[in-house]
């Protein structure tokens, strides 16, 4: 009768005084820690930190497995926890390479940004060189329409007329932009 009570799971202990349920609990803890580690490991922001729960999961699963081997208790959850923990830890460690990759890409960013700014500046200058301005004013039935061109060729001609055949490129550019504004 005593034997039956022990096997009923009330206080089931083996010859070494260990509870077979403890390896099962360790397995659950290991699996949960491993899955959390896995989810954290694939998020780049916190991926590196995931190595800590990863190691905890591996330790829990290993201790649980050694207990399970002694007790002959089920090992499925423990093995799953161990495998997921190891894979998650490996992914977590690989985040170091991601940091390296980002740093490598970041080195090229200032050059790329400068190139984009130069391109935009060139496009704006080119467009302003041939800009045409049309102003229409209506007041008490009177209509006044002013059409002017800030085109480069027209300005060159105008300046040539004013200065007797000579013109200054910087003045022309400045004037063009002022008119547009």
């Amino acid at each position, binding site marked *: 009768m005593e034997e*039956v009570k022990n096997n009923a799971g009330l206080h089931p202990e083996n010859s070494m005084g260990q509870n077979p349920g403890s390896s099962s609990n360790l397995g659950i803890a290991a699996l949960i820690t491993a899955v959390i580690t896995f989810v954290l490991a694939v998020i*780049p*922001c916190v991926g590196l930190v995931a190595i800590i729960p990863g190691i905890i999961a591996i330790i829990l699963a290993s201790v649980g497995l050694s207990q399970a081997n002694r007790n002959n208790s*089920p090992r499925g959850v423990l093995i799953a926890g161990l495998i997921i923990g190891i894979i998650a830890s490996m992914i977590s460690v690989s985040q170091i390479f991601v*940091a390296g990759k980002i740093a490598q890409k970041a080195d090229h960013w200032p050059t790329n940004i400068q190139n984009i700014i130069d391109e935009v500046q060139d496009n704006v200058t080119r467009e302003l060189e041939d800009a045409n301005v049309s102003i229409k004013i209506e007041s008490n039935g009177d209509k006044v329409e002013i059409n002017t061109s800030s085109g480069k060729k027209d300005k060159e001609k105008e300046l040539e007329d004013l200065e007797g055949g000579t013109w200054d490129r910087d003045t022309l550019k400045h004037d063009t932009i002022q008119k547009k504004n």
Partner: protein
Amino acid sequence: MILYKRKIKTEQNLKISQRLKPYLIINIIFAGIILLIFAYSGFFSPEKDNYPVTCIHETLTGRPCVSCGLSHSFSLIVRGRIDEAYEWNHYGMRIFLFFAGQLVLRVAFSIFYVKYPDTRKQLVIVDCIGSGIIFLVSFWPFITSIF
């Protein structure tokens, strides 16, 4: 003979309870963790920007990574500001839906597990494969950023 039968029966019950326990416990703990994530998103305000988690990549390299702004995005989704959430992190909604889906699945699978004992093995297999696929689909942009 009676004692022997009882012994076998109690051993069987013990084995069944041992098999029963882990899946339900794991489901309950995962559901709790997901609820904690939602509580974290709701507690910290996107206006105050007082999130305790900082991006390690940004700290190390000075540049943002693919998951930067995820906490902000989650907080905005919880508050129903979806458009702003997309601006903070393009994949925020996808990850949030994964967690929300998992919360529903944990509850649903736990109910099925208790109600239909005959299909437990199949249920666990379907859960593992299904959740794995959903995880891969949701976190694919982050996974590809690693490799």
